[in-house]
């Protein structure tokens, strides 16, 4: 019964703006909101697992987001320069470019994540203050490295033509294409994570570890191997999130990760630390409300996401799906 409350609230939030916004604008905003939500979810999902399992506050997550975007950008540039796959009208070539760019983001972000976990996070397990300081420090270094490698200015992200523009549905509504791709990707990632966490042995051990890592250890599981794997997977998700966010906005900047990290932390807190489903619900809540409010009262947009967080914390201090550890 209680578990049904958050989805119902979500549905109410989805339909409520119809009172103030005309249906066509509402649909456009809803698609944009869902897309933004799914992109934030990619970042928040990694953050929530890393915090839930390892009790690590990883402020460098935003830098991994930027690195994923830049790595994907370089791959996309290379592939488009050599074969013209972004400008080609072929759907297959366009999808191929997207896949290669995603692969580039995954490889670079997860490799960086593994290095971060092994070198700077491992010595500060259990010490939140040191974690914040050292991961913030890593963020600065990683951002500066981006400026050195790619320059300090915005870069234009090549977006495959298939994903540009919009589809007209029955001459009635105009649906932007890229947001639909982003929504599909987010849904696929959520489904994949759910499957991994609930249907595999590794997922079972990770879920047990989120609840009580010492017990998992004394049962004979090498928790540090799982820590590294989760850190790498979370970093990969951040990287993919960065790439998709870059394609969504068609441009990337060295500091893009820091801005997204605030949203991701808000989402993780709303959803409950350690809960992937919570992060999905929280991300969609934030994405939708941000877009509706930005349309109605542009200046209040960020304030509303904060207000939702405060409200959730007042009613349920552990977040919507948190177990309260």
């Amino acid at each position, binding site marked *: 019964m209680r578990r049904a409350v958050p989805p119902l609230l979500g549905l109410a939030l989805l339909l409520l703006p119809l009172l103030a916004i005309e249906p066509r604008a509402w649909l456009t905003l809803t698609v944009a909101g869902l897309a933004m939500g799914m992109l934030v979810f990619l970042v928040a999902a990694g953050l929530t697992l890393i915090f839930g399992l390892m009790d690590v506050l990883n402020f460098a997550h935003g830098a991994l987001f930027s690195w994923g975007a830049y790595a994907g950008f370089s791959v996309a540039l290379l592939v488009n320069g050599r074969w013209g796959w972004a400008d080609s009208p072929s759907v297959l070539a366009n999808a191929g470019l997207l896949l290669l760019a995603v692969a580039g983001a995954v490889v670079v972000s997860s490799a960086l994540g593994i290095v971060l976990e092994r070198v700077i996070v491992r010595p500060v397990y259990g010490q939140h203050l040191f974690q914040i300081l050292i991961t913030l420090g890593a963020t600065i270094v990683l951002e500066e490295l981006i400026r050195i490698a790619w320059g300090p200015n915005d870069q234009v992200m090549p977006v495959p033509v298939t994903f540009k523009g919009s589809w007209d549905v029955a001459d009635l509504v105009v649906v932007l294409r890229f947001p639909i791709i982003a929504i599909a990707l987010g849904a696929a990632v959520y489904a994949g994570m759910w499957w991994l966490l609930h249907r595999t042995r590794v997922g079972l051990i990770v879920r047990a570890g989120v*609840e009580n890592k010492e017990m998992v250890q004394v*049962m004979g599981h090498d928790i540090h191997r799982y820590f590294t794997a989760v850190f790498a997977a979370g970093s990969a998700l951040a990287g993919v999130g960065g790439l998709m966010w870059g394609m969504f906005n068609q441009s990337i900047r060295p500091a893009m990760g820091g801005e997204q990290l605030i949203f991701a932390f808000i989402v993780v807190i709303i959803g409950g630390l350690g809960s992937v489903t919570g992060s999905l619900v929280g991300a969609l809540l934030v994405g939708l409300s941000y877009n509706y409010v930005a349309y109605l009262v542009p200046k209040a947009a960020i304030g509303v996401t904060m207000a939702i967080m405060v409200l959730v914390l007042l009613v349920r201090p552990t977040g919507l799906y948190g177990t309260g550890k």
Partner: protein
Amino acid sequence: MADLLELEGVHTDIDQHHILQGVSLRVRPGAVTVLLGRNGAGKTTTMRTIMGVLRPRRGAVRFDGRPIHALAPHAIARLGIGYVPEGQGIFATLTVDENLRVAMLADTAESRDRLRRALVLFPDLERFRDARAGTLSGGQKQMLAIARAFVNPTRLLLIDEPSKGLAPIVIEHLTAALATMKEHATVVLVEQNFAMASRLGDDCYVMDDGRTVHAGPMASLAADQALKRKYLGV
């Protein structure tokens, strides 16, 4: 026969506190060794030191003649040591079945057979196999915790205060189950419930202020009123 587990002059700190100040004990294979002592005597710290969760500052822990005090907890567990911590340590959001599966290190015929035997011993677990472990009663949670440690072919079981917070009738059931299990395993049992301890125990150690202060057969301690009063307050 050589001792299965041996602690020699073990000192363990928790933060700045010097908790264990020289614990020495020997565990005979096939026997149930009971650790007794007042609250704060260092019984749980001794168990956590054996498991490698806490690292001793001085002294040695040997399992089967081999020093293990420098190993990580997971490596110690894989030597064949099962641990039922104080407060059970069950995964409340996982189902009973999932709790058992996390515990089972290898899906072998022997493990499946041990699981079957554990479920015969604790039929409630079979009945609530798909329920979330957090919804179980205190006694059922304790049964789950013991079954989890039992499903692997463990050579040594460490059980910390299984009777804590349980009703007398549940303790009765648990004692009977442990009595059956002791035929298959060597057990180190921390227990405040003297009746349970004396029914299950073969050997016993009494701890006080982080030291082992008495060692001997359980039966002779049960008869020694002066010793019991001095260290256990019973």
